[in-house]
């Protein structure tokens, strides 16, 4: 538990030690997320190879524009998080860096919410086209493997979307509470959240390539 009187937690001898532990813990958590999404992406790749034609049919109907816009938004939000982190490093030296940090955090969160909105629009469009859920009999897709691929697309992007939502939640909470956090504590939390955000972003890039781009 990070305490607000700027002492590291009881079991740690110094802040550096606590921060190192937090960093290691976060990297391990990211490793577990990579294993999770990694296996889902392997499933997608397996079906790409097994049923290249069905996948091609499904992929042709996906909304590239929205997805590309989403990619830019997520990348930009990652950039903003990194800027927030850099700004937070200066919290010990410069006066009033808080505003810059908070602005970057808010910007990231807004971009994250925009991402989710675009995704929602994409899902709505696909629902109207009858592509989702892809198990109904009157799907416009002809091949069963195309429908299967649409379902995998849905599960993978929905799971990712949940992670984006969690990330946005964390960032908004930080944005709101930053004033009340002590410098070491704030710096550590921003760093951990930034790491998480970068992971969510990296997973999206791989998903984007796997689901939208390859074999288009």
């Amino acid at each position, binding site marked *: 538990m990070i305490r607000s009187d700027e002492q590291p937690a009881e079991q740690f001898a110094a802040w550096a030690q606590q921060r190192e532990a937090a960093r290691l813990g976060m990297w391990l958590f990211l490793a577990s997320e990579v*294993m999770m999404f990694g296996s889902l992406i392997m499933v997608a790749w397996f079906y790409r190879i097994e049923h290249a034609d069905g996948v091609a049919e499904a992929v042709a109907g996906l909304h590239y524009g929205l997805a590309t816009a989403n990619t830019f938004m997520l990348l930009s939000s990652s950039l903003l998080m990194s800027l927030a982190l850099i700004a937070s490093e200066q919290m010990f030296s410069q006066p009033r860096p808080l505003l810059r940090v908070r602005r970057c955090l808010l910007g990231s969160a807004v971009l994250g919410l925009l991402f989710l909105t675009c995704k929602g629009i994409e899902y709505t469009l696909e629902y109207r086209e009858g592509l989702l859920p892809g198990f109904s009999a009157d799907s416009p897709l002809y091949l069963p493997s195309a429908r299967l691929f649409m379902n995998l697309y849905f599960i993978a992007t929905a799971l990712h979307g949940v992670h984006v939502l969690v990330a946005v939640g964390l960032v908004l909470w930080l944005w709101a509470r930053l004033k009340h956090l002590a410098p070491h504590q704030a710096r550590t939390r921003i760093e951990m959240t930034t790491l998480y955000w970068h992971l969510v972003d990296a997973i999206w890039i791989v998903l984007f390539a796997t689901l939208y781009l390859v074999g288009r």
Partner: protein
Amino acid sequence: MSAPSYLHKQGLMSWFLTQDHKRIAVLYMITVTFFFFVGGLAASLIRIELVTPNGDLLTADGYNRAFTLHGVIMVWFFLIPSIPSVFGNFLVPIMIGAKDMAFPRLNLFSWYLLLGGGLFTLLALLLGGVDTGWTFYTPLSTMFSNGHVVAVICGVFIAGFSSIFTGINIIATVHTLRAPGMTWMRLPLFVWSMYATSIILVLATPVLAVTLILVAAEHLFQIGVFDPRLGGDPLLFQHLFWFYSHPAVYIMILPAMGVISELITASGHKRIFGYSFVAASSVAIAVIGFLVWGHHMFVAGQSMYASLAFSLLSFMVSIPSAIKAYNWSATLYKSDLTVTAPFLFALTFIGLFIIGGVTGLFLALLAADLHAHDTYFVVAHFHYIMVGAAVAGYFGALHFWWPKITGRLYPQLWGKITAVMIFCGFNLTFFPQFILGYLGMPRRYHTYDPDFQFLNVLSSAGASILAVAYALPFFYLLGSLRWGERAPMNPWEAAGLEWRIPSPPPTHNFEAPVIVDFEAYDYSPEARRDPL
């Protein structure tokens, strides 16, 4: 004036909101004991049913639900959390000279996840029941099973996070909180095995999460991923499932192996033979264990060449285990041996583990597996490892560290009786199953050929002895809380940081920061034994 023990503060909330790794360990102990008895109840139903060739106690459906419940509860809610979450949590910080785990709040949260997931799963298994087997093979579980598959999946999914977070906590703790002077090669071997286990916990469990998500989606929405009529592949499920579940069995055995290293050195009052080999073997098992999952699928429709590769790799993974067994035995040479209850549990472990391991190699032999796969031979093999060995490891740990955890001594004689009863009862229960399996009795059979009855009766008789043996500690260990002698700091005259703090320890473990200027398992006459 010494600090009050960690058990001192009273009140339920002080337990349910604790961040002390020792209290959390006790919470886990109570939880896994509960699930052990539930799973054991299911096992009793199974063994009673199997006394006769016909299905007279349970219907076919009831029997299928019973063995599913037995497998799900025992694997995910007893075996996987048992040693890591109870003894890993209690001992790892103390053994490395730290005051707590790196993430105490996460630790408590992990316990709630296990408890919540477990109760939810239990409810689903009892109210509706699931008849898929703990392995949930598709398309049976996705398209043909009747029952609350999705509910059970949710419970296991939640409990999986308990595993992941425990693993993260242990790795971060061992990396960042070692006391000054506690180098990697001075760590107790229990810590090494917990570290190796945690690697598996963190990296393998997420794959189970995805597998469960896909099964649930298929069951609910027929997405097609495992349905051949929709372009899916039922074998893909098996690859995904076993990619997690094989490393999972190493989660179940590695901690027990770590315990045995401690028990052997403490009983022999001697440093382990080949410390670096034993330490490295834990990591080797964890790594190679990720490469052998296909040995569950030799007859599943996997390519011949893949099967050959997996068979060879399975032989490789046995080597580090063999190293441990040899090293433990060699440690006793020129030792100063006290034959205590924990030592008897260690012997039980070694004996049963060797048989289990060797029969595992038998199954890795392709031609033998074509015959023995999905028979009672496999059932016997994995019970020798998971029950014979792992549970002996858990009980050994319980008997060894009970004085430290509770501050009470229990009657040694009863501990020894339990160990011997477990050894005899276990062999009587499961050795006949090797023969049954080779004869051809398949697993998960509610009724069987009358020719198999004699061996089944032997097995069930052994099970009744085992049941008594497993129940015994419940009485004398709990009884010791009331009537047991107060435990001294170091009742076993063992080396290790945990034996230089009071029994039970104070909340923050060490009065003063620890400096480690000695090797592990230092049993020299000059070794420091004074309180820290």
